[in-house]
Structures are given as C-alpha cells and as structure tokens.
C-alpha cells in the first residue's frame, strides 16, 4: 500500500504558551505515528498576516492538514491526543 505523505501546517500568532504547546504536542504525535512521512510548516500570522485568509484561519493555534485531501482543521493546543489523531485520520498501529 502506497503511503501518502502528510503535509501539515500549524498557524500560530507569536510564541504564546498555547502555540508552543501545540507545536510540541504535534511533533510528539507525528514522531510516534508518522515517522518519516510528514512535514510540518509553522506559519506565524504576526509576521505574515496575509496568509490567514487563504486557509480561512480564525482561531489560533490551527493545525491544517493540506495533504492528504480533504483538508482538515484542528484548532486548539492539540492537548487531546485521540482527537488529534482522529482529526488527522491517522490509523494507530495496534501493537
């Protein structure tokens, strides 16, 4: 089965505790379940405000799964692991 690469974008607004937390959580989950199959792009809206319109960002932090389609969005600090995995549609390997 062909494995698709996950393209993830995390929108934040400055280095707030919430955004640091979100990024840390995201990295942990990806390392655990998507090793080698993902890329994370962090966009700071304070530096690039014009990018908020394209992905319809309202809340921060927002995680956007660009690939694979369809686009999914998860908002919040990503503290609930199960929800994030379900939201990203990552199948957890049963060990």
């Amino acid at each position, binding site marked *: 089965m062909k494995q698709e690469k996950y393209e993830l974008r995390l*929108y934040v*607004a400055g280095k707030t505790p*919430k955004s640091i*937390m*979100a990024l840390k959580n995201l990295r942990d989950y990806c390392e655990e379940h998507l090793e080698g199959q993902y890329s994370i792009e962090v966009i700071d*809206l*304070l530096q690039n*405000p*014009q990018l*908020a*319109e394209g992905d*319809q*960002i*309202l*809340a*921060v*932090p*927002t995680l956007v799964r660009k690939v694979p389609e*369809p*686009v*999914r*969005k*998860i*908002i*919040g*600090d*990503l*503290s*609930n692991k199960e*929800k*994030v995995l*379900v*939201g990203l549609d990552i199948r957890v390997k049963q060990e």
Partner: protein
Amino acid sequence: MSKTKQTSSKKLPMLRKAPSGIPGLDQITMGGLPAGRPTLVCGAAGCGKTLFSLEFIIRGAMNYNEPGVFVAFEEKADELATNVASLGFDLAALQAGNKIKIDHIHIDRSEIEETGEYDLEGLFIRLNYAIDAIGAKRVVLDTVENLFAGLSNQAILRSELRRLFQWLKNKGVTTVITGERGENTLTKQGLEEYVSDCVILLDHRVTGEISTRRLRIVKYRGSLHGTNEYPFLIDEEGISVLPITSLVLNKPVSSGIVSTGIPALNNMLGKSGFFRGSSILVSGTAGTGKTSVAASFAYQACKNNERCLFFAFEESPQQIIRNMKSIGINFDPYIKKNTLRFYASRPTIYGLEMHLLAINKAIRKFKPSLVIMDPISNFVTIGNFSEVRAMLVRLIDFLQQEQVTVMFTALSINIGINEQTDDGVSSLVDAWILLKDIEMNGERNKGLYIIKSRGMDHSKQIREFIISSKGINIVDVYFGPDGILTGSAREAHMLQEKQMRTKTAKK
C-alpha cells in the same frame, strides 16, 4: 492656571458621529452612528440588516471618503456585489479602488475539530490586516453570530467577542455588527451585552396583510436620538428612513397666487387664485367632477411652465390622460417636456407609512411646485380615519415646508356628512371647494361652492358647474322666482330673458 483657563474656554467634547449616508437616518440619530464605536443592528431574518450595513460601508466610501472593511460571515464577496448591483452600487470598482475590502470568513464545522485551548487571534490579525491595508475607518461584521455555529466553545467565544469589540474601539473604527433577533432578546447570542454604545432594531411587520418595515433606535449612549419607530423603505435606491416631521407651526408662507385654471373659479376667489404653497381640498360625491377640477389646476400649472406631480390612486395615468382629452385638456406635450409627471400606485400596495415615504421621495426627486393627489379618500381602505388623518397632517406639513401647492380630492360618500370629509382633513387645509349634485325638476346638475379660503374673501354662492368638451366652466348664478336655476331651467330662463331683450329692442 493657564490649563484650567484653556479648558473652560474650550467646548465640551461631544460624541463624534459618522454619518451613515442613509437618507433620514442621520436626522434621527442627529448626525449618524457613534464614530469609532461599535453599533449593533439587529432584527429578524429578511429585515434588511445586511443591506443596512452594506449601505453604511458603501456610502461611507463614496460620500465621506471613509474606506471600509466588510467582513461577511454569510455571503461571499461576489454574492454581495450582485445584491447591491441592483441598487446601482458598483462594489467591484470600489474594491478595485481600495475603498472597500470584503473579507469572506467561512467556517465549516464539519472540517474543524477542536481540542484544548485556543483564541480568535487569527480573526483579529485578519481584521487588522484588512483595516490597515486600505486605511479603513468603517468595519462591518455580518453576522458575527455565525461564529457560534462554527465553534463550540462558548466560553472562549464570548470572552473573545468581548475582546474583539474592545479592540475595534481601541482601533478607532466605526463598526456595525449585525445580529439575528432572538426570542426574548435582541439577538440570539446576546450580543447587546457587549455592544453598549448604540443599538438599532429593524423590524418587518405585517398588519392587515400590509407590510411595513420599521426602524427604532433602542439606545444611543451619549447622544440624543429620536425614540419613535420610524418606517423605512427599501427600494431601487437602497434604504430610506422617514423621520416623522414635527408639527411645529412655523412654516414659511408665500403671498404669491396660483391660478386655478378655471377663470370663473378664479373670480370667485378674492385674489383670483389660491395662495402658493397652500393646500386645497376638493370634495364631493361620485361623478361631480373632482378629478376634472384637479386636472384643470394641473393643466394651468403646466401652461405656466411649473412642474406638476400628479398622484393617481384610483385611475391609471393613461386613463386620466384619455379622459381629460374629452374636456379639452391635453397633457401629452407636458409629459414629454417633463413638466408633468404621473405617479400611480394602488393604495393597497403597501401601508400608509410607506406611501407617505414614497410620496415624499417622489416629491423630493421631481421638485414640483404643484402636487395633485387624486383621491385621498382611497387611503381609507388601508387604514382607519385617524391613521389616514395623521398621515395627511404629515404630508401637508412636509409640502408646506417645501412651499409646494397641493390639491387633494376626496370622495364624500354619505350626503348627510359631506360637510365633513371622511378624512377629517378639512381643518388642516387652507381652502375647501365642495362639489355637489343639485337635483331639481328631474335633472341632476353639478354645483360648486367654496366653503373656505383662508386669507382671502370668496364668493358664498352655489354656482352651477358645467363640464364640456371645452373644459370646465362655472356659470353665473341665475335667480328665478324659486331661487337658483340650474340646467335646463336656467337655459329656459336665459332664453326667456333674451326674448324679452329682443322684444324691448324692437319696441
């Protein structure tokens, strides 16, 4: 010391206002919406909230050089552009000219998952970016409540909205926030808690199958404002609100005279006509020639090159034109020259308030010096006497303010009460002509007399009134042995007199 001196000589800081540009609204709010503060516009679905806010932005950009950002949570930019294109606003050009920026915010719950803490900084950043991009002075959020449908964490939303409104205030932009009306509250999500500066309620009510839109300013902190419910109209020019004119009796008066178009009627009036800017009532039973009198008056004005606006509430303009040709009045050339214009509408098409508003607008636009309303008694079909009377009071008030002469016709149904017209406007009008049937010797003739004419002497006689292909004529009174003679009795008398004269001449 010097400081205190300065402040005492300075005027007290007044609330700055941002004119909305919506005709009538700025009069009620005494200048416009509070500048640099948020205003909540609420109402049920279809009451005109989005149009109101769009007009605020567009007119601000076009008339007051205040660029605006329109944040649409509901409709897309191109949908909005299509919606206002029918009102003659070119949204695309305004956007291209960086006068208006439309930001469509789309929230789809199905593609959003929520986990943990978040805030709406993204919305703030987008707004800030849009405002700074065009130097906006005005912002519309339409409808911010849609956020509640897209995001589930109410606690976060509420605190973020509070922060948003405060942020907009600090930013110094005049904001209009729209909100759907809730069951027992002004808005479903209680936005009125957060926006406390100015709240405007729009309403669309149907009473007796006739719909009227109304606007009320629920509150306006730091400013005087009209507190009534004001009817408003949405037509091809957008929204217009009708401030109810106060009946202060300090109108300008004119002693100029306008001819009635009927020479004999002029002779009956002490000054050979009516005062300019006065209101004249022509009442009578069915078929006495009310419209014909009004038409001759209009015809005379046309011949004098004065603009005349003819409101027809009973017959269509074509009918009136055709019928008046039979009495030697040809309106066609004057319609072509744009001296005369007809405005026809059925009384039942909308409520009295809307009629008044539409009439006001038509008059403001055409700027006539004479207005004919034929007939006002038809309004009784859509309102009771007191309502019709109140409407006419305001209409006469407005017309006198504008120095427009007006002639109303009214049908008096019951002969017993024809001294009192059904609309009870007789005390408001300056002159009153009564037309009545005179039945004598098995003949029905028309009689005319002047009940009153303020400020001038007038004939007290009942004259016979003849409508022929040459127009209207009023015959001198003929007294026979039994009083006034009319119709064939008069003609017989005239013939007799003539014979007598020839006999005496022969002798």
